[in-house]
């Protein structure tokens, strides 16, 4: 594990823990956010037969760096009537919430922030801070659009957490573990061992599982999409109605923190979907490291596979964003309470029965 490695180098377990906890931020979230913003703009542009950013670097790949430089130089505006302490804490709380999620995400066999036994439950718990932070931001801005956006966002996140948790429960029922690293280890081998293809145990149950797993995957993908407030579920920051939702009043680096949290969340939910259904960090076709007998290569390959799968699902999120129009509030709630939750419940019961039999 990465912790032991740092412990060996630094000789101090405090220092090793601090380095390990900062590692995902610097080697993963920041570069990923830079890349994802660029990808978002490119994907949206090409889907609309445009080109997108082209001038900063080749095909605009340095555009986000330039944007960040611009954001750093911007004035940090706090509105006069805003609640200053809460206004300043809110972006930090939101970012803490979405960063805490990364502690339990297994990036590779050797790189998982904290291999806690309750990985998936921890992720669900930590996302509660995001809701609190969003409400705080909306209220502290003292702006009706911000408050409306925050309320909508919180209502949406809470409602859609239910189908997410129900789907997670089915996976816990099948595998008997809530530890994401164990879950990933179980899906080792080839892609037919992934949970979406019925899990690692070969038998008649595996083939019965497949259709239910696909329904499960669709439900969790839709509900996590709603949880990160992305189109078609972006009514909390609907530009045409609410300016920009709860971060309307934010500027400069505080806005950048919201932005970073949003992209970190996007990857986090993709990572959850990957870890639950698509084998986590496991390669679908075997490792080069095994082929050449170089075992130190395997964790690196696993990391690459994990990021590739995660980025693919982030890409699908963007793809959906430029395909579907925004839902109305009543449609949003109907989709959750009338469709996703009952179907997830029925799925839970059926899969429970299959597991018991």
């Amino acid at each position, binding site marked *: 594990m990465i912790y032991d490695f740092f412990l060996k180098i630094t000789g101090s377990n405090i220092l090793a823990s601090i380095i390990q906890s900062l590692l995902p931020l610097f080697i993963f979230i920041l570069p990923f956010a830079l890349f994802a913003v660029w990808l978002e703009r490119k994907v949206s542009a090409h889907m609309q037969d445009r080109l997108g950013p*082209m001038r900063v670097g080749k095909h605009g790949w340095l555009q986000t760096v330039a944007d960040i430089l611009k954001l750093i130089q911007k004035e940090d505006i706090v509105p006069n009537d805003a609640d200053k302490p809460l206004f300043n804490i809110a972006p930090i709380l939101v970012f803490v919430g979405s960063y805490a999620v990364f502690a339990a995400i297994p990036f590779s066999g050797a790189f998982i922030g904290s291999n806690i036994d309750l990985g998936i439950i921890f992720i669900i718990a930590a996302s509660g801070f995001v809701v609190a932070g969003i409400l705080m931001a909306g209220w502290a801005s003292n702006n009706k659009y911000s408050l409306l956006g925050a309320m909508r966002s919180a209502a949406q996140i809470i409602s859609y957490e239910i189908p997410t948790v129900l789907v997670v429960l089915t996976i816990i029922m099948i595998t008997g573990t809530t530890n994401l690293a164990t879950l990933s280890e179980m899906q080792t081998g080839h892609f037919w061992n992934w949970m979406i293809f019925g899990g690692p145990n070969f038998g008649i149950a595996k083939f019965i599982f497949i259709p239910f797993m696909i329904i499960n995957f669709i439900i969790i993908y839709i509900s996590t999409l709603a949880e990160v407030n992305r189109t078609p579920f972006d009514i909390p920051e609907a530009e045409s109605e609410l300016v920009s939702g709860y971060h309307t009043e934010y500027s400069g680096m505080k806005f950048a923190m919201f932005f970073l949290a949003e992209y970190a969340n996007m990857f986090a939910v993709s990572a959850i979907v990957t870890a639950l259904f698509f084998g986590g960090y496991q390669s679908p076709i075997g490792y080069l490291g095994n082929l050449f007998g170089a075992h130190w290569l395997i964790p690196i390959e696993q990391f690459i596979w994990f990021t590739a799968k995660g980025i693919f699902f982030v890409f699908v999120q963007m*793809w959906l964003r430029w*395909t579907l129009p925004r839902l109305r509030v009543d449609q949003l709630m109907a989709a959750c309470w009338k469709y996703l939750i009952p*179907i997830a419940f029925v799925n839970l019961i059926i899969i429970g029965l299959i597991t018991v039999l």
Partner: protein
Amino acid sequence: MKEYFKNAWSALFTIFVGMKVTFKHLFVPAVTIQYPDVKLQLPERERNRLYVNMDDCIGCDQCARACPVDCISIETVKGLPGEDLGKTSNGKRKALWVTKFDIDFAKCCYCQLCVFPCPTECIYMTDVYEFSEFERSNLIYDFVTLTPQEREEKKINYAKFEAEKAAAKLAPAAVKPAESKEAPKP
């Protein structure tokens, strides 16, 4: 119950139909023109910045009068009798020194009305459309080919000539020489 599943299925199915459409568009070549690097071919009769060919201008002021926004201002000075001002390209003899021919492109509305009255076709539209400036005063274009000293010289020459003429007219009479010293400027 049947409608419930039909709804769910059609929602899911139509999402995939939409995704197929957008995915196809991902590979359609972009229609964007990278403007400063690549420029669109403008039509032949485009109306952009005016140009005045001063070699042909006879200073007739017709363009200034045609202008609906008064962005052209012209001042002329008559040439002296012996002076040869040259000819325009269609054979007309020039009689006036053009000492001021300013076009204010901040005002110009690119209507092309000034182009048609010109008897020598010396004012016309070009294909230049990138001439933004930081100062509004930089948008006043001066088309006169004479240097400032030359313009002053022409004015003084003509004033002198007028004065001499007046003096010559008055010389026989020799009455009230001081009266018409101030020759009215054209």
